[in-house]
C-alpha cells in the first residue's frame, strides 16, 4: 500500500523491528545535526576564563552565568544590539507583510496597464545576486545619502522583498475571485477588500511570511555589518562578530553571546513550530 512493506498480523514484530532500526538511525543523525547547538548552549554556562583548548567538555562540569555577564560587560551597547535587531526585524516584517499583501493582491486580482511587465520586473529582481548590488548600495547609502549608522540604512533596502510579493501573488491567485466581485458590488472599496476579505482568508500564509521574514532579518549579518560602524547602531549579529573577533580565546563568553543571539529564534520556533515547518515548503512544493 505504501512505499514500505506492509507486514501481516503475525509479522508485526518485523515492522516494529524495522521502525526501531530506522528510528535509531534517525536519532543518531539528528543528534549529530543538533550537536553544535547543544554544544553552544552547554558551553555558555562555563566559566569565562581563557580557554587553552583543553577546558571544554560535552557535559557541563559547573553551572555559572558568569560568561553571560562577561558578554554583556564587554560593551555597554550589548542590550542595545538586541534592541536594534528587534526594531529592524519587526519593522521589516510588518512592512513586508503589509506591502506584499497589497502588491500581491494587485498582481493577482487587479488588471491595470503594465501589471504583467511590473510582475516580470519583480521576477528578474529576485534573480539578481546580492554581490551585484552590494557595492552600488553601499556607495548610495554611505557616500551619497550619508545615512550610515541609522535605522533607515538598516531597514530601507529590505522594506519589501520581491520574494514575498511573489509568494503573496501566488497564493492570492488561488482565492476565488467571485467573493471579491460580490464585495465590490456591495460597495466595498479595494483597500477594504484586501483588509476584510483577502487578509482573513490568507492568515496562515501571511503568518508564515511574517515568521520567515523575521527569522531572516534577525539572522542577517552582511548588510548591517556594512552600514553600521558605530557600536550603538549594530545589530546583535554584528556585535557578536565584533565581540568574538576581539576575544578570540574567551570560549564560554563567545558561546554565551551566540546563545543570546539564537535564543529569541528558538523561543519563536518552539512556540510557532507549525508555521516554521510550513514556511519551508511554501514556494517549493505546489499546492
Amino acid at each position, binding site marked *: 500500500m505504501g512505499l514500505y512493506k506492509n507486514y501481516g498480523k503475525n509479522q508485526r514484530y518485523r515492522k516494529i523491528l524495522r521502525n526501531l532500526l530506522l528510528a535509531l538511525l534517525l536519532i543518531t543523525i539528528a543528534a549529530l545535526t543538533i550537536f*553544535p547547538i547543544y554544544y553552544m548552549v552547554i558551553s555558555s554556562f562555563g566559566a569565562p576564563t581563557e580557554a587553552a583548548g583543553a577546558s571544554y567538555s560535552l557535559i557541563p562540569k559547573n553551572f555559572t552565568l558568569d560568561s553571560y555577564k562577561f558578554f554583556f560587560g564587554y560593551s555597554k551597547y550589548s542590550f542595545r544590539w538586541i534592541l536594534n535587531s528587534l526594531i529592524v526585524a519587526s519593522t521589516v516584517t510588518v512592512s513586508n507583510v503589509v506591502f506584499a499583501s497589497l502588491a500581491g493582491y494587485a498582481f493577482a486580482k487587479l488588471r491595470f496597464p503594465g501589471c504583467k511587465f511590473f510582475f516580470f520586473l519583480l521576477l528578474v529582481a529576485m534573480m539578481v545576486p546580492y554581490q*551585484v548590488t552590494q557595492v552600488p548600495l553601499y556607495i548610495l547609502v554611505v557616500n551619497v545619502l550619508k545615512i550610515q549608522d541609522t535605522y533607515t540604512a538598516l531597514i530601507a533596502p529590505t522594506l519589501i522583498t520581491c520574494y514575498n510579493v511573489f509568494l503573496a501573488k501566488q497564493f492570492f491567485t488561488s482565492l476565488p475571485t467571485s467573493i471579491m466581485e460580490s464585495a465590490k458590488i456591495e460597495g466595498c472599496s479595494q483597500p477594504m477588500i484586501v483588509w476584510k476579505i483577502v487578509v482573513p482568508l490568507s492568515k496562515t500564509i501571511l503568518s508564515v511570511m511574517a515568521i520567515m521574514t523575521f527569522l531572516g532579518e534577525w539572522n542577517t549579518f552582511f548588510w548591517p555589518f556594512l552600514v553600521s560602524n558605530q557600536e550603538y547602531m549594530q545589530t546583535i549579529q554584528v556585535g557578536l562578530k565584533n565581540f568574538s573577533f576581539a576575544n578570540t580565546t574567551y570560549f564560554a563568553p563567545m558561546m554565551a553571546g551566540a546563545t543570546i543571539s539564537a535564543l529569541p529564534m528558538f523561543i519563536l520556533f518552539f512556540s510557532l513550530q507549525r508555521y516554521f515547518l510550513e514556511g519551508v515548503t511554501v514556494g*517549493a512544493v505546489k499546492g
Partner: protein
Amino acid sequence: MQYPLEREKTMANKKHKLKKDALWGYVFILVPLTTFIIFTLYPVISAAITSFQHYKPLKTTWVGFDNYVSTFKNALFYKALKNTLVYTVFAVPISMFLSFSISLFILPFKKRVQTIFKAAFYLPAIASGVALSFVWKWIYDPMPTGLLNSILHIFGISSQNWLGSSKTAMASLIIMAVFSGLGTSIIIYIAALLGIDSTYYEAADIDGASFFQKVRYVVWPMVKPTTVFLAITGVINGFQSFQNAYLMTGGGPDNATTMAGLLIFNRAFKYFEYGEACAQALILAAIIAVFAVFQFKLSANDVEY
C-alpha cells in the same frame, strides 16, 4: 428603448470601476516598485557603469574594460571560481542525497514523530550563521584536545589542522554547510513524498517491486521536480556563499577557501576597488544565470510526466 440605455449606463459604470481598480493597482504596488527602483534597478545599472570606471568618491575616471581585463588576468579570480565550483559540486549533491535518504527513513513514522524529526533537523537553520560559525570554529579546533580531533583520536585518527591546512579547510566548510542546511531540504522532500499517490505503490507492489525498485522507479521520478528545485536553489546559493568562509577562515589558508563571494567582498571593502568588484560581481551573475538556465533546460527535458 430603456434597455440599451441602461446597458450603456452599466457599461460606463463598469469602465469607471475598471479605471478606479487600475488606479488602486498602481497605488498597491507603489511602495514595492519604488523600493525595487532604488534598491535593485538603480544598483544594477550603477554596477554596470561602475564596472567600467575607476571609482573614487570625488574623482571617478573611465577606464573602459580595464576592470574586466585585470579580473581575467588575476590568478586568484580563477582560484576563487574553482573553489566556488568545488564547494558547490560537493555540498549540494551530498546535502541532497542525505536529505532524500533521511526523508525516506522518516516517512514510515506517524505524523507526530515525523514532526519531531523535522523540527530536530531544522533546528540548526534557525540559529544565526554567525553563532553557528563560532561553534564550528571550536569544533574544528586544531589542538589535539579540540573537539573533533579528540573524537577522532578514539578511532586512531591523528589530529588535523582542520581550518588551518589547505588540504582540509574546504572540506571542513563543506561538512559544516551540509550539516547546517539539511533540515530545509528534508522538510521539502517529505512534503513531496507525502504527495505521491499510494496507487503508484500499489501498482509497483502488484509488479512485485522491491523497496529499492520502488524508490528508484516510483519515488525518484515522482520527486524529480523537487530535486530540480533544490538543485537549482542550492547551486545559486552555493555560488553566492560568503559568510562562512569570511567568518571561519577569512579565505585562507593560502586562499584555499576564497570563493567568489569573498573575492568580490575583499575587492570592494578591503582594497576599495569598487570598479573591479562590480566587474567581478557581474561576471559571477552571468555565470550563475548560465548555470541556472543550463540546469533548468537539462532537467526540463525529462521532467514531464
